[in-house]
């Protein structure tokens, strides 16, 4: 009986692992990573709303709350290799957006580079 339970448990584990593999989630270069300003799962779902709200408040009211600014996102999540969140299949923004087939047009105007890296380059 014990053996049977053990075998079932192992089988269950394998199927769960298999199921996750099956989605072939994009492997992202998360840059510096670390603790995000919000819960990561919540951010995956809601980052666009956060950015949209922040954008209007910054442009029209001059509220420059660093926490939810695009610049702050890039500061942490730009790749440590090229300081960018776009440009490669595993770039933080582009990786997911390619996978989801959602066009990302932020970076036609906004810089995709980590600003602290650009400051260093200038000096």
């Amino acid at each position, binding site marked *: 009986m014990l053996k049977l339970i053990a075998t079932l448990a192992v089988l269950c584990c394998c199927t769960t692992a298999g199921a996750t593999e099956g989605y072939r989630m994009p492997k992202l270069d998360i840059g510096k990573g670390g603790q995000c300003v919000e819960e990561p799962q919540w951010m995956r779902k809601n980052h666009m709303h956060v950015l949209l709200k922040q954008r209007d408040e910054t442009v029209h009211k001059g*509220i420059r709350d660093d926490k939810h600014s695009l610049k702050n996102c890039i500061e942490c999540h730009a790749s440590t290799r090229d300081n960018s969140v776009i440009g490669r299949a595993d770039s933080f923004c582009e990786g997911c957006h390619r996978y989801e087939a959602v066009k990302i047009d932020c970076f036609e105007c906004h810089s995709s580079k980590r600003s602290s890296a650009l400051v260093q380059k200038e000096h």
Partner: protein
Amino acid sequence: MSDTNVQRRQFLKTSVGAAAVAIAPGMLLFDMAHGKSEAVSSKVRWGMLIDTANCADGCNDCVTACNKENGLSGGLSPTDSQWIRKVELKDMRGGRTLALPMMCQHCENPPCVDVCPTGASFKRADGIVLVDKHLCIGCRYCMMACPYKARSFVHEPLHDQKPDVPRGKGTVESCTMCVHRVDKGQQPACAEACPNKSILFGNLNDPDSEISKKIRTVASTQVRADLGLNTGIRYQGI
């Protein structure tokens, strides 16, 4: 009232005081660490006073500083963006020459805002006139409405924009009075770069600010004052 009750009140008062003392510096530090979280208000009106007598002929430092700060190419072709330009004037009779920087005049009643069909061209509460490029459809009505020819249209795709100054093809742009610097408590790049300190930046609504004091004591002019736009940029000596 029982003695216990009085003691309880005393305790509550002290705790509230202690909590305020403990929290206040934390809030201050939070504000410093997370940037400005308060909206701009109409108590402030940003403006500039430009002393044309000190503006040297041939000096282009304000223009160069603006281009560098905002990531503009500095090119002079009809399709290159110019946020500030040096204008040289000559009185044909007397022969007196004059040079001055000309840019968005940050009007109180901006014609560019009146004509914008999408609400992209707007005036911030503190008097800075901006384009919300998220809303701009590139119709260029504002460029036609502006009596100062202050706005430019971005014709070509851009790369390597400054993180603080997003710019993109298909939108209209102009002098932002370096809004990203002003929000940090700094001066616009042109005012800082002027070697003769002939661009004075400050709050027109504060009677004690340097700019208000100077406007009270010297004669200053608004360009095309006849239009009644009440510009935020004033010139001295024209």
